[in-house]
């Protein structure tokens, strides 16, 4: 008798679950307000990407043209396919000590896999992702970028001494 009732309860439970599913999808079918597709080239003016969207890698500079890159080279080491080249030079600072200063932070957009390891591993948070995703260019040389702007320098941290 147990098998007999199980047969019918299986049948009715199955049918009711199918009907629940069909009601959900019919609801989606009848409500065009739920459409999530963005009609991309036409809605550029109103397009808003979330802050965590990964565009290209940039080095944020503040209003006084300061960045936070110390030239340590950790990003160059953690990049999985060598899309970053950090070129430094030696300078003498005010106290007379020889320090290392970033000369050029070369970023090969053509090879970048957008994995984000450089952004994550930078100890001074010098790198970030921008929301710019329209990166195609007609000249391959334009894909090799220098991330630190000309005339910029390391931001002086106020260290509590």
């Amino acid at each position: 008798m147990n098998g007999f009732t199980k047969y019918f309860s299986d049948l009715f439970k199955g049918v009711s679950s199918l009907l629940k599913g069909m009601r959900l999808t019919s609801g989606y079918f009848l409500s065009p307000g739920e459409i999530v597709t963005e009609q991309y080239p036409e809605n550029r003016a109103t397009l808003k990407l979330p802050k965590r969207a990964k565009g290209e890698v940039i080095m944020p500079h503040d209003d006084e043209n300061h960045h936070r890159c110390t030239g340590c080279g950790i990003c160059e080491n953690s990049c999985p396919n060598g899309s970053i080249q950090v070129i430094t030079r030696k300078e003498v600072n005010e106290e007379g000590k020889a320090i290392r200063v970033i000369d050029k932070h070369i970023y090969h957009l053509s090879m970048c896999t957008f994995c984000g390891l450089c952004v994550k591993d930078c100890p001074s948070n010098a790198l970030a992702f921008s929301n710019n995703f329209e990166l195609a260019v007609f000249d391959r040389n334009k894909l090799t970028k220098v991330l630190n702007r000309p005339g910029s320098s390391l931001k002086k941290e106020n260290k509590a001494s």
Partner: protein
Amino acid sequence: MSFNIYDFTSFTQSIHDGLSSVMAPGWVTFTELVIVGIVFLAFYALTGLALVYIERKVCAFIQNRVGPNRVGPYGLFQTVADATKLLLKELLMVHKADKFLFNLAPYIVIVASFMALGALPFAKGLHAIDLNIGVLYILAVTSLSVLGILIAGWSSNSKYSLIGAMRSGAQVVSYELSVGMALLTVVLFTGSMQLSVIVESQVDGWWIFKGHIPAFIALIIYIVASTAEINRGPFDIAEAESELAAGFHTEYSGMKFAFFFLAEYVNMFFVAGLAATVFLGGWMPLHIGGFEAFNRVMDFIPPIIWFFGKTFALIYIIMLFKWTFPRIRIDQLLTLEWKYLLPINLFNILIVALIVMMGWHF
């Protein structure tokens, strides 16, 4: 019987008489065959195109996206672009495939579709053939497509195709039983297998209303079993796009693939059309026996619009099946048929026979 439903037999008779006055009877038959062939080819192609577009749009709306909307206004020419692409593709011949059978398989599937479509009454008098064993003929002819699938799978000389074809063969052969018996309920109600007589008998109400619960159960069983017959929806294990690398039509490209593809969509149209004819009254407007004024109002809508309206409503339901439910395994599929659908069907037929004998239906 309502008198303002236009009878197409006068139209077809006038064509026949016009032709007979010009040529010998043999030539008349030949010309009529050619005309019917061209009309059906055009209808087939147009229906295929429209249905592919409709499927993509319905699927997109169900999934909260937009579907094709770039090629032409609202993406209407998308299917034309797809058809052009398929026409221009190279027809690959598989290494060591059985050449004759490999080329034959798509044609068998298409021919089975055509033969079935010829028996559907689109409006009063508007059908290609009106056999007095209509339902039996349709069942016989739709069984031919499984031959095409098996031949396609075998002659492709590929293990995925063969597995897909074997599964499809098992599935189609099992579900044919359910389809036949679901149609049998309406044949019992009507007392005739001739499709035009079945439609005429629904003049005072569609069988789904007149036959209440058993007819409703039969309609549900028929739709489920037919979705399995045409290898569609949650039963598409044979062509399982994501599992068997397109199953029995993996090795086909270009126009031959287009034949399989088209045949699937036109089969869907045919199955919905047959359900509409047998259960929902075909081209017969919604009549409630005894409400004369209501019936007269309903008669204003031309019968062909009734037919296509009902067919497309059922097509929407079949598409909803595909995009709502996950694909079921081959053993679950066969369990569904042999353990659930078939016993319910048999009981249903018993009940219908009892009802017809006692005269309890409307």
